[in-house]
């Protein structure tokens, strides 16, 4: 009887806990994997490439403000501000806003000039999903800068029937 017991795969409590822990990591990994979260990311990347023409985008100088939790994605107040002196030789040329999870990633493009005084734009946008929203800014010297914000959308825009 005792010899028979040795043939059975004996599992100790600690081994069992370890295997369960591994399963947990696999589950978490798939949850955070970018391909699942940003289904439309390729579209957004393409839209960004069209804006920049493949030029390098540096992080910083751009602040994008959206509420972190949005109840209704149909009207979300979005503010973009750029740190720039707005003088005749150093100003913000264009502000592009791109949403990674929207069916059409481009949201708007605002063309500024030294006569704008400041680079602050506020508007109301639609968000189809919980996602990252990017602001890509072209300066007068041709350099590109970006800022982004994450948001969680409870009720999505564009899905409702009429």
């Amino acid at each position, binding site marked *: 009887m005792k010899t028979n017991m040795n043939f059975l795969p004996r599992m100790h409590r600690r081994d069992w806990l370890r295997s369960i822990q591994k399963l947990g990591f696999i589950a978490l990994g798939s949850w955070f994997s970018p391909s699942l979260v940003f289904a439309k990311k390729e579209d957004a990347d393409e839209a960004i490439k069209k804006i920049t023409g493949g030029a390098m985008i540096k992080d910083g100088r751009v602040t994008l403000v959206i509420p972190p939790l949005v109840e209704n994605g*149909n*009207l*979300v107040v979005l503010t973009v501000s750029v740190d720039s002196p707005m003088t005749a030789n150093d100003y913000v040329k264009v502000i592009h*806003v791109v*949403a990674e999870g*929207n*069916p*059409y*990633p*481009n*949201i*708007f*493009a*605002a*063309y*500024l*000039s030294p*006569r*704008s*005084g*400041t680079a*602050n*734009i*506020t*508007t*109301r*946008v*639609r*968000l189809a999903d919980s996602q990252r929203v990017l602001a890509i800014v072209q300066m007068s010297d041709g350099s590109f800068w970006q800022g982004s914000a994450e948001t969680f959308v409870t009720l999505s*825009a*564009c899905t*409702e*029937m*009429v």
Partner: protein
Amino acid sequence: MSKTSRTSITMPSTAKKGSIIEIRAIAQHDMESGFRYTESGKLIPRDIIHVFTCSYNNVEIFKADFFSGIGANPLIIFTTIATETGTLEFKWVGDDGYEAINQARITVS
């Protein structure tokens, strides 16, 4: 026949020369995104405003391109420097021959 709708501008009527003024421009428009379906499964065609421009005494100072991601009744808030007394003209152009024009006077001292 072209379409038009109500628009509204909020900005100061007087300003000091060289000061920065804030302008709020809103247009009444559904901004139909072109991604929605009717109950019978038919796609609703896109009907949005594409371009918004602002000229200060006939010089263009601000332009914005709108896409489907802009919400209904598009509002845009931007700034400009008050340079001289005159008229600011705002123009919205969209799908299906939509066009709306609004004007505002400013006195600069």
